[in-house]
């Protein structure tokens, strides 16, 4: 089968065209060695009989090696040798889009130009003279509307035809004063048998880094013929743009082309408000608040708190009770979806347990299935609805072009931290999931900026960390009389604050550099497409379910197994009753089951029968001792490790025999953050509040436990993504950074809450560190400046 590559500028509608071409057959993977997304799919034409593999290359402006995307696209076309390149060109922005076209045409590969967004162009009353453009460029040009799937079959039919004929690269520079120089350089390349000699020759003349590295021998020869003071890269860019404006733009017919400044498009009007000098930042904060409100709020838009909105019908006793609203207000869509799943999974769990009871399943198997399926898988899927809702909103903001404006608005602030405004986008994505957020850092310009951003992303409360926040909310409110909602909001803001503090420190010490440049297109606003959104979301669901079916199940099984097995592989039942007394008098073991039943059912008559001398109302004196986890493998290991958590208030000193559970969940949390509450729920048999009370942990210790887990190494998936995205050798330092930072934050939280006076010591130390870092940086900068001068 033939392979067609899609190449084009960002925002040229390339992805829309890809979706229209491949439908549901798209396959998303990574380019080898890097995590830039690789999308592949198949096109099957019903009318033209064409079949082809379509590869979606990353959106790029040029084939110069400025970003990893450009290098990938360039290498793909040069090395993988697709049968044809479909160059997607935004017809409403011909000038800049054709710049890439002039470079693609230099490669020895058949090219077809797809003039996209033709519908928009027609709306503006403009048409493009296609035959004239075809003649100028020397390759087929097809008008398409990827959005309305117009012209797609025609495009592929022409592509199929063009791919059968080999094409030699041509350069616009061959028609300029520099034709001779380009000709000579091309000849040098040709003589050495290099494919696509025109492309390589021009790039070599431009003194392109990649080119010089891959062809050192030719570099010498070509640099020898390049006049000393000639800046060929400036000339070539200039000539390309001149060629485009002279030869190509004239092919637009219809009304006279207005200069963008003369008219106010819808996009401009929106922009006037959203990026307003004064209103821009408040509007962004408001949008963020609304997005999080629609996802997590149980009092939508504060209608209850502020306006007293309340409903009298509450479907009491029915399935709908509490689904849409409670006494506290209206639920947000995220909460409604989450409730729906909660109701369904509860029903399913009951059904499973009934089924198990009906076939007389062994108690250990019932426990196992409940641990892994109900407490593990169901609980984790339970957070999918809210993650999805959040993700949908972020996709809409991104697809609409607003995120680029956010970078524009916040660049000034971020520059103070040593980052560009672009770094804000991956950080914000960190609120959804750290993995795509880390992948997004590839749009950043320098290694140091990437490193700092990836490290900071770990501090943002992602969707998985929500599971921990949700699980402990009840404990915070019930056991410690804390405002759990306020804490959750605090974590969202606090994550950002800690990220900023960390970036400042890095920028002053280990990651010092000049602030990277900020050169970014602000694409026109457009409505996000439903279809593309659905494809995004489906990818997300698949990814999440895959995680659940692998990491979560495996770790749930692992935890269940090693909390039920001893070192010599014997099974023990932690829930098993091992002693029962009444007023200090031991009861006969054969009575235990009946007594437990009677207590549970408040059957006092039965108790009087079972226990000699029982006085009604004193059933509280019946003491039931359960076996607990002593002797199991994980209990042993965790107890051994737990002293290292003493400074954070949840080590063996503070929580005694329960310390192992806090330790275990903190350590297993590195697999995936969902595992933290999961582990606690499993070892407490679902009674988290009771467990926390029994453990005797303090408020400070509990907050420290939560904060440590929120701030530490995120998960396996994040580690592997960070490994791929970080510059070489930086992963170990990054892991160390995460561990140290979260440990110190944990200690700080514990001490500050339980021993407030320690703030008198810790705050000055903190300030001292920053002051020292500040002067270290200032000194170094001065020295460097002196050296440069």
């Amino acid at each position, binding site marked *: 089968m033939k392979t067609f590559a899609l190449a084009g500028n960002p925002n040229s509608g390339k992805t829309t065209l890809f979706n229209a071409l491949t439908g549901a057959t798209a396959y998303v993977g990574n380019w080898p060695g890097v995590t830039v997304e690789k999308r592949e799919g198949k096109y099957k034409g019903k009318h033209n009989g064409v079949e082809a593999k379509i590869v979606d290359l990353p959106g790029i*402006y*040029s084939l*110069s090696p*400025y970003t990893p995307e450009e290098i990938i696209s360039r290498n793909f076309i040069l090395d993988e040798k697709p049968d044809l390149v479909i160059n997607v060109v935004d017809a*409403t*922005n*011909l*000038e*800049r889009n054709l*710049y890439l076209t002039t470079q693609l045409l230099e490669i020895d590969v058949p090219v077809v130009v797809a003039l996209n967004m033709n519908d928009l162009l027609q709306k503006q009353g403009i048409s493009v003279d296609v035959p004239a453009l075809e003649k100028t460029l020397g390759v087929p040009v097809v008008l398409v509307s990827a959005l309305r799937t117009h012209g797609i079959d025609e495009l592929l039919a022409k592509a199929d035809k063009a791919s059968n004929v080999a094409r030699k690269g041509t350069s616009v520079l061959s028609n300029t004063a520099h034709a001779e120089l380009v000709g000579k350089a091309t000849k040098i390349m040709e003589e050495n048998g290099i494919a696509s000699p025109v492309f390589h020759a021009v790039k070599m003349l*431009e003194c392109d880094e990649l080119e010089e590295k891959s062809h050192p021998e030719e570099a010498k020869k070509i640099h020898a013929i390049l006049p000393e003071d000639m800046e060929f*890269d*400036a000339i070539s*860019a*200039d000539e390309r*743009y*001149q060629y485009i404006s002279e030869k190509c733009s004239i092919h637009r017919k219809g009304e006279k082309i207005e*200069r*963008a*400044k003369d008219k106010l498009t819808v996009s401009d009007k929106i*922009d006037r408000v959203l*990026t307003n*000098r*004064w209103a*821009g*930042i408040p509007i962004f904060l408001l949008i963020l608040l609304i997005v999080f409100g629609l996802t997590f709020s149980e009092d939508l838009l504060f209608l209850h708190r502020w306006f007293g909105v309340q409903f009298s019908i509450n479907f009491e006793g029915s399935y709908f009770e509490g689904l849409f609203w409670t006494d506290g207000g209206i639920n947000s869509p995220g909460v409604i979806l989450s409730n729906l799943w909660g109701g369904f999974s509860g029903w399913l769990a009951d059904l499973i347990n009934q089924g198990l009871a009906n076939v007389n399943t062994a108690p250990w198997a019932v426990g196992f299935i409940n641990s892994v399926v109900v407490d593990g898988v169901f609980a984790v899927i339970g957070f999918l609805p809210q993650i999805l809702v959040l993700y949908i909103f972020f996709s809409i903001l991104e697809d609409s072009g607003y995120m680029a404006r956010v970078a*524009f*608005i916040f*660049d*000034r*602030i971020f*520059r103070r931290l040593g980052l560009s*405004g672009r770094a804000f986008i991956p950080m914000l994505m960190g609120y959804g999931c750290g993995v795509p957020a880390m992948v997004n850092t590839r749009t950043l310009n320098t290694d140091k900026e990437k490193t700092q951003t990836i490290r900071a992303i770990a501090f943002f409360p992602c969707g998985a960390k929500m599971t921990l926040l949700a699980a402990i909310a009840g404990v915070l409110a019930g056991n410690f009389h804390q405002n759990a909602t306020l804490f959750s909001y605090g974590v969202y803001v606090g994550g950002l604050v800690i990220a900023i503090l960390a970036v400042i420190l890095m920028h002053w010490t280990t990651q010092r550099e000049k*602030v990277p*440049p*900020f*050169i*970014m*297109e*602000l*694409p*026109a606003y457009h409505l996000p497409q439903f279809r593309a959104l659905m494809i995004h979301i489906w990818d997300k669901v698949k990814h999440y379910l895959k995680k659940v079916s692998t990491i979560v199940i495996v770790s749930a099984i692992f935890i269940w197994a090693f909390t039920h097995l001893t070192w010599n592989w014997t099974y023990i039942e932690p829930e098993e009753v091992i002693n029962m007394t009444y007023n200090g008098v031991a009861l006969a073991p054969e009575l235990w089951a009946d007594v437990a039943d009677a207590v549970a059912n408040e059957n006092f008559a039965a108790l009087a029968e079972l226990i000699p001398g029982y006085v009604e109302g004193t059933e509280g004196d019946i003491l039931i001792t359960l076996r607990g986890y002593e002797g199991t493998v994980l209990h042993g290991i965790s107890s051994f490790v737990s002293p290292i958590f003493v400074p954070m208030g949840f080590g063996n000193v503070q929580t005694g025999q329960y310390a192992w559970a806090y330790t275990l969940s903190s350590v297993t949390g590195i697999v995936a953050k969902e595992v933290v509450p999961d582990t606690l729920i499993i070892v407490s048999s679902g009674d988290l509040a009771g467990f926390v009370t029994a453990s005797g942990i303090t408020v400070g210790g509990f907050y420290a436990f939560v904060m440590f887990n929120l701030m530490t190494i995120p998960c396996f998936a994040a580690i592997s993504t960070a490994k791929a995205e970080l510059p070489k050798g930086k992963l170990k330092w990054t892991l160390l950074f995460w561990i140290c930072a979260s440990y110190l934050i944990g200690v700080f939280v514990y001490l500050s809450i339980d021993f407030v006076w320690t703030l008198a010591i810790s705050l000055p130390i903190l300030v001292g560190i920053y002051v020292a870092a500040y002067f270290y940086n200032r000194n170094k900068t001065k020295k460097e400046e002196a050296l440069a001068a």
Partner: protein
Amino acid sequence: MQKEMSAFAIGETGRIVKVLGEGKVRHRLFDMGLTPGAEVYLRKKAPMGDPLEFTLRGYELSLRKDEAQFVICEVEEAK
């Protein structure tokens, strides 16, 4: 009169004369269409006056003053 692009007032238009600076950043400016002869127009400034948003070659490009100062334009004398 010649002027750096970073010194434009909102609504000001100019024609690029030359691009200073060096290396990758300069090449990137070229790639994005900031070549001699191109007409640029300062649309707006971000909160706190930086970065700047220009219109050129039919699209919007945002640049910091640090980068924009490399681009020298010919502008009409203020009346």
